[in-house]
């Protein structure tokens, strides 16, 4: 095998930037294996999640990330351990990449006790170290992300925060509010618009007067990225981290990507786009297939090796799925656990006033002290 190989990415489009990320990059064999493994795990988990939903084991909402894996994996590759991430409700992939194992994700989806939020958060609300969800209100996570970045600057850690949102959320007023403040105060926030073409069932062009999302930060520099190419995303994300840590303030990345599933599992995803469109992306732009071909052709890995990884991931995810189905839900007493980190009322009112429930403290309350 080659230990590393050079690659050329699609050209970036720049806004308010003299110079963008380099389009030629090098990929090591280790990183090739890592990115492949990460993207494949996310894909496999989502396939499993989709099945669990169809089996009616996952309830409520379930928004799959399949098709968009290169965005999360590429950005994660550029982050340091002390950087923060916050995203919207399409959060399963990010939760995993930030440190939650497949069981932690899948059991959260099935609402069981090994879920990373003990099954209390559900599909849209997963958390781990430096990962702040999993947020269910479209656009609301973006101000939170700027706040996380503000805290990094306040503490002087040189950390950045990646605040992700979709092309749908890009039209929310509060997103523009914090573009303004983030630039005004030069907050180290990397805004990432994951443009998958549709805000629920409304295509970008039907929702936005300007669909060049990377330009919509006004004075904030922006970069358009081929979000189906994990290496392009990685290069742009590295550039963005450098930009933020050098004190230049926020930057906006638009990753052009695609989601194969509907908006959520209740959406077949075919009334506002054609099956042919989805097929075409799968066949010509799939982030995993294209990456796989690239790294095999460059002799970084062999097909057999990848096949072995596929098998291993399949069995890990299948095992996790099995557990996530079979496990228990948390006990009833946790209905009234962790409403407050400092519970001033020891008893929580029940449905009737005569049988109050004790407030319990279970979680670690990371900001308690």
């Amino acid at each position, binding site marked *: 095998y080659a230990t590393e190989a050079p690659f050329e990415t699609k050209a970036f489009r720049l806004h308010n930037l003299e110079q963008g990320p380099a389009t030629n990059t090098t990929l090591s064999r280790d990183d090739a294996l890592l990115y492949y493994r990460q993207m494949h795990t996310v894909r496999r988990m989502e396939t499993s999640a989709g099945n669990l939903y169809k089996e009616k084991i996952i309830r409520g909402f379930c928004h799959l990330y399949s098709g968009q894996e290169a965005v999360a994996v590429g950005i994660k590759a550029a982050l340091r351990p002390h950087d923060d991430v916050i995203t919207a409700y399409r959060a399963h992939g990010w939760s995993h990449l930030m440190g939650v194992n497949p069981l932690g994700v899948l059991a959260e989806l099935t609402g069981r006790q090994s879920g990373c939020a003990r099954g209390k958060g559900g599909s849209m609300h997963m958390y781990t170290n430096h990962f702040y969800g999993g947020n269910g209100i479209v656009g609301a996570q973006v101000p939170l992300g700027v706040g996380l970045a503000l805290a990094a600057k*306040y503490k002087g850690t040189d950390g950045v925060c990646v605040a992700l949102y979709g092309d749908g959320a890009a039209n929310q007023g509060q997103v523009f509010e*914090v573009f303004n403040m983030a630039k005004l105060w030069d907050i180290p926030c990397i805004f990432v618009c994951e443009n998958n073409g549709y805000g629920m069932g409304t295509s970008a062009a039907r929702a936005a007067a300007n669909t060049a999302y990377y330009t919509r930060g006004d004075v904030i520099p922006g970069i358009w990225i081929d979000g189906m190419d994990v290496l392009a995303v990685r290069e742009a994300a590295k550039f963005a981290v450098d930009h933020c840590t050098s004190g230049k303030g926020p930057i906006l990345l638009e990753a052009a990507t695609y989601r194969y599933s509907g908006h959520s599992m209740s959406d077949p995803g075919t009334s506002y786009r054609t099956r042919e469109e989805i097929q075409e992306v799968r066949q010509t732009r799939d982030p995993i297939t294209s990456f796989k071909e690239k790294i095999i052709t460059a002799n970084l890995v062999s097909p057999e090796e990848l096949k072995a990884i596929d098998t291993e991931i399949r069995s890990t995810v299948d095992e996790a799925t099995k557990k996530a189905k079979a496990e228990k839900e948390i006990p009833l007493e946790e209905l009234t656990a962790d*409403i407050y980190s400092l519970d001033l009322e020891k008893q929580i009112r029940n449905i009737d006033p005569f049988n109050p429930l004790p407030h319990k403290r279970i979680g670690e*309350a990371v900001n308690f002290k």
Partner: protein
Amino acid sequence: KQMTVRDALNSALDEEMTRDERVFIIGEEVAQYDGAYKVTRGLWKKYGDKRVIDTPITEMGFTGIAVGAAMAGLRPVCEYMTFNFAMQAIDQIINSAGKTFYMSAGRVNVPIVFRGPNGAAAGVGAQHSQCYGAWYAHCPGLKVISPYNSEDCKGLLKAAIRDPDPVVFLENEILYGVQYPMSDQALSNDFVLPIGKAKIERPGKHITIVAHSRAVETSLQAANELSSKGIEAEVINLRSLRPLDINTITASVAKTNHLITVEQGWPSAGIGAEILARIMESEAFFHLDQPAIRLTGVDTPMPYTKSLEMAALPVPKDVVEMTKKLLKVK
């Protein structure tokens, strides 16, 4: 020593900023302007740009930023010029600040204070004259404080800043300039009042009057007038709306057998409504000799018209008359 509510709030902020590097103030006009109502006077000069941050007029955005900073372990004090404007940001207050600890199964607590003037001011019309006490007190995950005088404001704001959960702190613009006595204890740096405990402002045996914020003043004035007629009203200052100190109220009702609630907010699903419901559901119900009564703001948006505005909020006379009616005295 006498101190205005404004100065009491200012000293609470000052002391807590000195005590804890993580405490910072963010909001409109909090820094260079010295606070729209001068609550933050002098703090920008003392602590600088990093810790006293002027924002553009963009409540939803800066509230979300403050909440995010709290998630990362800072202790933001998020000021609203008035709580009427916090309605622009209420999703961040309830959904982001109030629910994240529960959703994360106890992982990410959000230590933040949302503060500013609440309720009716004077002559500012419908959109600037509203009490949000009931709105926030409705939501599990939030703690809600509605202080009355200077001691309340100092001790409870300090408690709110130190509390590891999101606290909504509802001040009153009319009271900012009013002086109240401060005990020696209240003047000290470590004066902290417990959140969730009501205060008996005036002991009495004939009727219990429960109020919060400026309505405490109304109730105390009424109690003085009643006293001259031989009626001793017990006035309870709620201080906190969530948790609601129902035990202090029920103990008082067991003694006086009569209850009136007084508030400036609207009647429907209000604080008084909640108190009456809880009394109805408890043993205290059997101690009542008369139905418990709510005195509230009139169920209407606030008019600008001076005479109508005055008629829209409870005054001492309303409390006196209702007391006499319940006690069947002329």
